[in-house]
């Protein structure tokens, strides 16, 4: 009896991305676009607290983090907390792009930075690059 070798690609798992975005339309599009692109989307979280809880419980490969959220603590606070407790890093997807904000975020070792308004294709390309960086 001939047994076919197990295909190597069968063990490939979908990368898991935690989306943190408080705007309904943006988070809806992000969820759809990332799912279509082959990612497992966790969230979207709309507050820093939810983001931290989802990260701790679901252990995503990376986080797409907005900065202004529906909570008093912002996305930079959440990214720091997530990085400090789990080592998971974030891509910041935000309208903020000033040196002061970037300096504040540096401690969370961001995987990338994409400025609003961005296209979902640009975000997906950045996530793919970042996942490669995380793996290597």
């Amino acid at each position: 009896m001939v047994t076919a070798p197990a295909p190597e690609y069968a063990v490939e798992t979908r990368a898991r991305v935690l989306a943190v975005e408080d705007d309904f339309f943006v988070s809806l599009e992000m969820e759809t676009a990332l799912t279509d692109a082959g990612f497992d989307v966790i969230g979207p979280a709309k507050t820093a607290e939810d983001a931290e809880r989802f990260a701790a419980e679901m252990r995503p490969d990376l986080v797409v983090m907005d900065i202004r959220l529906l909570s008093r603590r912002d996305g930079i606070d959440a990214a720091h907390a997530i990085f400090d407790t789990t080592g998971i890093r974030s891509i910041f997807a935000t309208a903020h792009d000033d040196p002061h904000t970037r300096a504040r975020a540096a401690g969370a070792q961001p995987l990338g930075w994409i400025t609003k308004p961005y296209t979902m294709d640009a975000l997906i390309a950045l996530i793919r690059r970042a996942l490669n960086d995380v793996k290597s």
Partner: protein
Amino acid sequence: MIQLGYPAHGPYNVTKTACELHTPDLDASWMNNATFAQSAGTADALRTFEHLATLGTEENFRKLLEALPAAVFTTDAEGRITFYNRAAVELAGREPVLGVDNWCVTWRLYRPDGTLLPHDECPMAITLKEDRALSGVEAIAERPDGTRVPFLAYPRPIHDASGKLIGAVKMMLDITDRKEAENKIRDLMNELNHRVKNNMQMLQSLLGAAEREASSAEAREALSDAVRRVGAMAAAQQGMYSASATEFEVQPFIEALCRNASQSFGAKADIHIVEASGRLHNDAAIPVALILNELLTNAVKHGRAEQSRVTTSVALRPVGSQWELAVADDGPGFSLGQPRRRASGLGLVMGLGRQLGGTFQVVSDKGARCVVRFGGPRTAE
């Protein structure tokens, strides 16, 4: 003899005046051409100056410096402080030590970027070392109590009758209020810019969702065109306010627009940037972005003929006194008739071209070459 003059059209509408006074041992030619009409305090100071100047004598000249609401001090040729007024003490937050303190009355100095400015490199030191006047050099004084005062420095050399440098006089204008106002404006601009970017992101997402949910091919195409147009506006918005409040850098602008189109068309278009240089006025950003987007869309929709892919080249550059935006493709070419629609395609290009006060031209020769020329006084360089 002192002759004093200042600009007739200063912001505080001070009438041009000249006054004379006799001071045998003090040549105050530094006063000539001083940029005085800088603040209301200076305008007051000038009135006091004029009044006292009519009295004559060196003693009165000192009284006059003392009475100036602007901080003033003098040094000898070596930079040792020889005189200071009350306003200088207030600004510095300390009493200078005559004959001991060098270069400046302040406790510590910083550059506008926050780095320490050693006293022997301060504007007054430069004036003395290089025997030249400086105007409106910005610095920050730190008082012994730790508070900081931003100010503008106006150091001027003083010469004796033979023209030899014998010292210098420096006026310091406190610009705390101006700095606070500038910071407030900057915060407001950032906030506004942030909201505009967020709203554009939302608009783009909203149209994208509608496109996905549309059931007819025509609706999907129309919404896809709309998404790309908003994407072009968003790309134009990205670079604004990064270089200056009124102009933007052309290169990153064109790159962002081509990226937006390229993401939308995927393998259907190969877009090359041939040239993108200079700075353009913000007013031109959105019209130029939409025109470029429409020309690229047109090339993909009609320039592909039998091939699966169109190659386009994009250039935005100053030509003479005008700007030239050119998009060329390797398709079958076309001649420009009267476009059927005005809110899309070439109709939109013509409409926005008119908004820019420009011209639109199509040359067909081994593909189409679309050229929009625009200019006018509000587009820089």
